[in-house]
């Protein structure tokens, strides 16, 4: 009888290399980083025959924010800088002094909260075909920022927390109290409304 040879263990040092190759492959072909952006809902295309009824928005309830091809901003009737836009919008949406020129409020019964005077104001955003996309997004951003700050204020006052830290149920309540009324109707349509 000769000495029994042990079956040598399989050499596993190359599996690491194979795994590294796979890893490199995935690193090259995939993308990381989540997509971020501003979420919006477009208004549905109006049917031919039902056009007139919902365009009757009271004048005080609408603010037109226009951006021209030189990226200048006109809010309401006065030209202003992008840095002033947020405060203008906040004032428009809150209407603290119940100014008859600023939007109406409607007391609504919010589920889980009670009655709250929700603003009827609508921000109508208009742009020229020559407006740069960056300017358009910055304006959108300012509008969202105004709404977000109002929501934060509201959450702090009622729940003692910022909007982002509230649970989902309360976030829905806050959203119902302070909507995000941005309308992006096509330029021509809104121009006719005036």
């Amino acid at each position: 009888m000769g000495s029994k040879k042990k079956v040598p263990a399989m050499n596993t040092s190359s599996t690491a290399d194979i795994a590294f190759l796979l890893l490199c492959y995935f690193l090259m072909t995939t993308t990381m980083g989540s997509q971020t952006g501003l979420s919006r809902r477009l208004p549905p295309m109006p049917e031919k025959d039902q056009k007139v009824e919902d365009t009757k928005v009271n004048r005080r309830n609408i603010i037109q924010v226009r951006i021209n091809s030189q990226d200048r901003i006109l809010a309401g009737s006065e030209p202003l800088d992008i840095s002033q836009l947020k405060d203008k919008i906040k004032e428009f949406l809150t209407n603290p002094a119940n100014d008859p020129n600023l939007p109406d409020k409607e007391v609504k019964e919010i589920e889980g909260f009670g009655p709250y005077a929700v603003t009827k104001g609508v921000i109508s955003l208009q742009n020229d075909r020559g407006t740069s996309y960056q300017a358009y997004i910055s304006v959108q951003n300012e509008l969202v920022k105004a709404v977000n700050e109002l929501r934060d204020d509201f959450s702090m006052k009622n729940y003692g927390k910022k909007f982002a830290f509230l649970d989902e149920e309360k976030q829905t309540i806050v959203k119902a109290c302070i909507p995000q009324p941005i309308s992006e109707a096509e330029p021509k349509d809104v121009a006719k409304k005036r």
Partner: protein
Amino acid sequence: MSKFGGSNNKKEVPAMTSSSLSDIVFMLLFFFMVTTQMRETENKVVVKTPEASEVVKLERKDLNSYINIGTPTKQYQAQYGTDARIQLNDSFRTTDDIRDFIAAERESKSEADRQFMTVSIRADQDVRMGIVTDVKQELRRCSALKIMYSARKPGKD
């Protein structure tokens, strides 16, 4: 050699086992496989998304379709010029093709998820709004109303 020697022989320091190395690498591999997504299309237009501080994260990447708008990259400029173009999937298209594109994208999503489908408009920051407005109008016509303007946080690229 200790293999053949008696039990009271001095043992050699065993070679470091590298068998766990592969496990570690596999773990890394799985991590990347889970957290990343396949680059589904090659970018034929240059897109540098605009900056915005109030951006939100997209929840469901798989329910997203992309419309890229920007100037063609260098190698396509001879063919397509330097004007802003629309890229759907892998080719240059016009606004008329959006309808088919949206229909195809809808078809590829499961029925329950179709209503949550988001169209992400990835436009370059120097693009003029005219082309974006055209795209938006076309999307409204196809009633793909949930859209997202791609933007990035300032200070990040």
